[in-house]
C-alpha cells in the first residue's frame, strides 16, 4: 500500500496543533497526523499527514492559507523496511564503563564494557539523552574515585537504567521507584532482561512517599533524573533520607535551571561536588555535608 505524506512547518505549537486537528477532517482521511517540534533548534513545528491515497491538493492549499503555514511538501514514501531503518538509527550509547544497547545490537557489546540492554519503548531512559548520559558518567566517575554504593535508590527510574548500572558494579540491593506505573512495569521487564531481578526492587512511589522505601533509608546514593520542579520539591525529603557523606546525582534540569536547584539543595545541606553539562542539560553530583 503506498503512503503519501504532506508536510509543512509553522511558527508556533498552538497553530501547529490546530492545523493537525483540521487535517484530521480532510477527505480522503489521513491514516495518521503528527505534530512535532523540529529538533534543529529553529523553534519551528512540523505538521505531517499520512495518506493511503493522494491527498486533496486544493484542501491543503486552503489549510496553508488559513493557518499561515509554509506550502505543503507532498511526496510518496518509498516502500522501505522501516523496522530496519529504525534499528539502524537506534545506536548503542557509551557512557564511561557502561554500554547501553537495544537487542538488535546485542553482538556489539565490547568485552571491556558493562552492557545494559534497554529497548527504546514506553519509559524514559534509553541513554539517548543528555540527562541519562550525564547520570551514567557521574556514576562512573564516583565509582572510579573509589566510592561504593551500599544503599542506593533511583527515584523516578523510568527504564531503571541508572539502578541497573549501579547494580552491575556493586553487590548490594538497589531500589528503583517511579510515580508512573507503566514505567515501573517497563523497569521490571528491563531488570529481568538484564538478569538483575535478585538485586533491584522496582516499586511505584511518589518521591520518598512509600513505607518500603523509607524503611530502606538512609541512602548513600540517590539518583533523581526528573525535572527542576520535582527536584526542588524533593530536596528536603531527599536530605532527610540520605546518609551523611552520601551522594545525590541529579539531572533533568536545563543548564540555566542549575542555580535554582543548587540553592534549594544548599538549604538542605547538600553541596555541589561535580557537574557536567551535556547539550542543554546539566547533571549535578551533590554530597551531604551535615
Amino acid at each position: 500500500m503506498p503512503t503519501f505524506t504532506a508536510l509543512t512547518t509553522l511558527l508556533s505549537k498552538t497553530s501547529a496543533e490546530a492545523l493537525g486537528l483540521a487535517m484530521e477532517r480532510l477527505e480522503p482521511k489521513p491514516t495518521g497526523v503528527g505534530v512535532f517540534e523540529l529538533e534543529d533548534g529553529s523553534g519551528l513545528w512540523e505538521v505531517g499527514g499520512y495518506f493511503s491515497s493522494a491527498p486533496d491538493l486544493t484542501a491543503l492549499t486552503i489549510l496553508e492559507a488559513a493557518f499561515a503555514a509554509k506550502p505543503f511538501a507532498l511526496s510518496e514514501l518509498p516502500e522501505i523496511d522501516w523496522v530496519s531503518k529504525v534499528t539502524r538509527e537506534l545506536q548503542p550509547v557509551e557512557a564511561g564503563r557502561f554500554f547501553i544497547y537495544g537487542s538488535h545490537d546485542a553482538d556489539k557489546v565490547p568485552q571491556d564494557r558493562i552492557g545494559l540492554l534497554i529497548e527504546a519503548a514506553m519509559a524514559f531512559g534509553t541513554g539517548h539523552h543528555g540527562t541519562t548520559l550525564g547520570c551514567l558518567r557521574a556514576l562512573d566517575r564516583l565509582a572510579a574515585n573509589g566510592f561504593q554504593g551500599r544503599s542506593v535508590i533511583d527515584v523516578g527510574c523510568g527504564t531503571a537504567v541508572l539502578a541497573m548500572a549501579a547494580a552491575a558494579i556493586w553487590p548490594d540491593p538497589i531500589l528503583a521507584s517511579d510515580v508512573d506505573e507503566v514505567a515501573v512495569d517497563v523497569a521490571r521487564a528491563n531488570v529481568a532482561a538484564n538478569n538483575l531481578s535478585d538485586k533491584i526492587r522496582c516499586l511505584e512511589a511518589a518521591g520518598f512517599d512509600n513505607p518500603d522505601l523509607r524503611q530502606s533509608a538512609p541512602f548513600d546514593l540517590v539518583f533523581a533524573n526528573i525535572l527542576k520542579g520535582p527536584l526542588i520539591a524533593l530536596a528536603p525529603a531527599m536530605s532527610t533520607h540520605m546518609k551523611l557523606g552520601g551522594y545525590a546525582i541529579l539531572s533533568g534540569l536545563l543548564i540555566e535551571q542549575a542555580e535554582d536547584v543548587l540553592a534549594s539543595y544548599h538549604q538542605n545541606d547538600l553541596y555541589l561536588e561535580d557537574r557536567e553539562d551535556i547539550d542543554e542539560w546539566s547533571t549535578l553530583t551533590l554530597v551531604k555535608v551535615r
Partner: protein
Amino acid sequence: MAKKLVGTLKLQVPAGQANPSPPVGPALGQRGINIMEFCKAFNAKTSDMEPGAPCPTVIEYFQDKSFSMTIKTPPASFYIRKAAKLKSGANKPGLEVAGSISTAQIREIAEAKMQDLNANNIEGAMQIILGSARSMGIEVK
C-alpha cells in the same frame, strides 16, 4: 525521568493487529520510534478488544526516542455500522435511510464509548450516539 516531549502522532490502528505496514511503519519510522516495541505494546493493550477494530491512538514521543500511547475506543461510526450490519452509511444522509439500529444497541454503543465521550451520564452519551447514527443515515427503531 526527565521527559521532554518532542511531538505527538495520531494514528488509527486496528486492535491487536499493529504491524510495520502503513500507517504505523512510515509514521513511526520517519521519527525513529521503535516500531516493533510500539506494535508489541499496542497489541498487548488491545488484546481484549475485537480484533481489527480501528482504535484512534495518540503517541507522544520524547527526546530519547521513548514514547507513551493513549488508546481510545473505536469511532462511534464503527460500532453503528457493525450494529446495523452495514459496510457504510447512507450516501445522502437525511434523504435516504441506509439501515436501522435499536435503542438497546444505541445504549450498548454509548456504554462502550462512554470513557471517550463528553457526557455526564449514559443518557447524554446515548444522545451523542443517536446524533452520529442520524448523520450516517441510520434510523433508530
